């Protein structure tokens, strides 16, 4: 039943998008509920009282919080669909490691690229390029981070593909120049319906960040 699965989310959230992509890959029907973070719904506050953050997946009334926890949950519950985590234990451990790496590094450093100026911005730019290069080295010449199969690390990272334009414009560098294989990978992922139907146009993301910059008094 579609009503049995509800996703509390915000349209532009790369974390929410991870969940949407995973659900689409598994062919799971669900109800999408857009949250207004300046006016959080009672449903969200009840479902995630600890952090009060999106995304939250509510399955048969039970809430699951944190995007990568949700993605693993989706993989385990809808186990008859194409697997998100690989079967081999060592490959699973590597996938978890890189998913965690993306979680720890991309959003925090990327945010500094549009929030900061001057020397702090240059420092963030240096760090971000380093992060891209580490990911590029890990990807190598593979089709996806999961190898031939689109999987966990791809899902963790691909929502940020729509943010590359924002990061490089604010940071004053070119993602393609620094990490061409990563850009090629992103374009390959966009050929998948689950990804192309979920990600927004990079210009729309840039516009959204422009609005955030005004809100935080940046520039």
């Amino acid at each position, binding site marked *: 039943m579609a009503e049995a699965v509800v996703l509390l989310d915000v349209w532009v959230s790369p974390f929410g998008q991870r969940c949407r992509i995973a659900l689409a890959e598994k062919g799971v029907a669900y109800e999408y509920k857009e949250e207004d973070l300046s006016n959080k719904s009672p449903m969200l506050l009840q479902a995630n009282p600890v952090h009060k953050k999106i995304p939250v997946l509510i399955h048969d009334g*039970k809430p*699951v919080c944190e995007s990568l926890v949700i993605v693993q949950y989706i993989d385990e519950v809808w186990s008859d669909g194409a697997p998100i985590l690989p079967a081999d*234990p060592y490959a699973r451990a590597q996938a*978890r*490691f890189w998913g*965690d*790496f993306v979680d720890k590094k991309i959003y925090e450093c990327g945010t500094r690229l549009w929030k900061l100026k001057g020397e702090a911005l240059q420092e963030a730019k240096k760090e971000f390029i380093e992060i891209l290069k580490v990911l590029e080295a890990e990807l190598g010449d593979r089709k996806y981070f999961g190898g031939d199969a689109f999987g966990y690390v791809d899902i963790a990272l691909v929502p940020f593909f729509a943010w590359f334009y924002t990061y490089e414009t604010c940071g004053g560098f070119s993602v393609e120049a620094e990490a061409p294989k990563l850009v090629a990978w992103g374009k390959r992922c966009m050929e998948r319906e689950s990804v192309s139907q979920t990600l927004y146009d990079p210009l729309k993301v840039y516009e959204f960040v422009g609005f955030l910059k005004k809100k935080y008094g940046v520039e």
Partner: protein
Amino acid sequence: MDQQPPIPPSDLKLLGSWADSHTHRVQLALKLKGLPFQYQEEDPLRPSAALLIHNPVYKNLPVLLHRGCPVLHSIIILHFLDDTWPHHRSLLPSDPFDRATARFWSHFADDKLAPAVAAVFSSEGDGQKAAVDQVHQNLKLLELELGDGGAFGGRRFFGGDEIGFLDIVLGCGSYWLAVFEEVMEVKLVDPEAFPRFHAWLRDFEDQREVKETIPAIDKLLEYARTVRQMMLGGGATAAAGDNAASN
């Protein structure tokens, strides 16, 4: 059930540090699963060549080598142990929702509780008072979950009747609460304010495998006092403080 061949001790090697709670998590997990392993003591401030090769991204501990292949981050290692030896005692619960709940709270332990406890250790005066308040806020949330209607309500351990994944993650590190209470002369786990958490911790530390894993309290106290003195002395020893504080 398949008859699995005995595991040669050389298959598993753990690089760790004696005072590192993340190392203890893995040692305890290996013990609970009955998996033999070799142990190599590392100095977190002076990473060995082996550590730098196996963990070039973070250069930190613990590192588990399985037939020479590195598995990093204690929480990931615990998952790996369950995935590789599913017929040995399971660490994680079997139900997907219970697994998601355990994972959520394991992140809480590492992202919220541990930094708050570390802040108590590395601060003074008003800063320390704020850090202590933060620890109390976090413990309150756990106390709630152990109560009626909470995710773990009515259970002796987070894992149920026996200790499991979340007990290992929260338990290995919670001994710093008692250590910091004594060294910093602050009250962190008041049994009246947090009766369930206090009871859980006491039961956890009473387990045979836990007693065999966690260093003696006086060794931990001595270590904490030394690091604290070095921190207050300032300068190059700040790194040592960060290391102790984040353990």
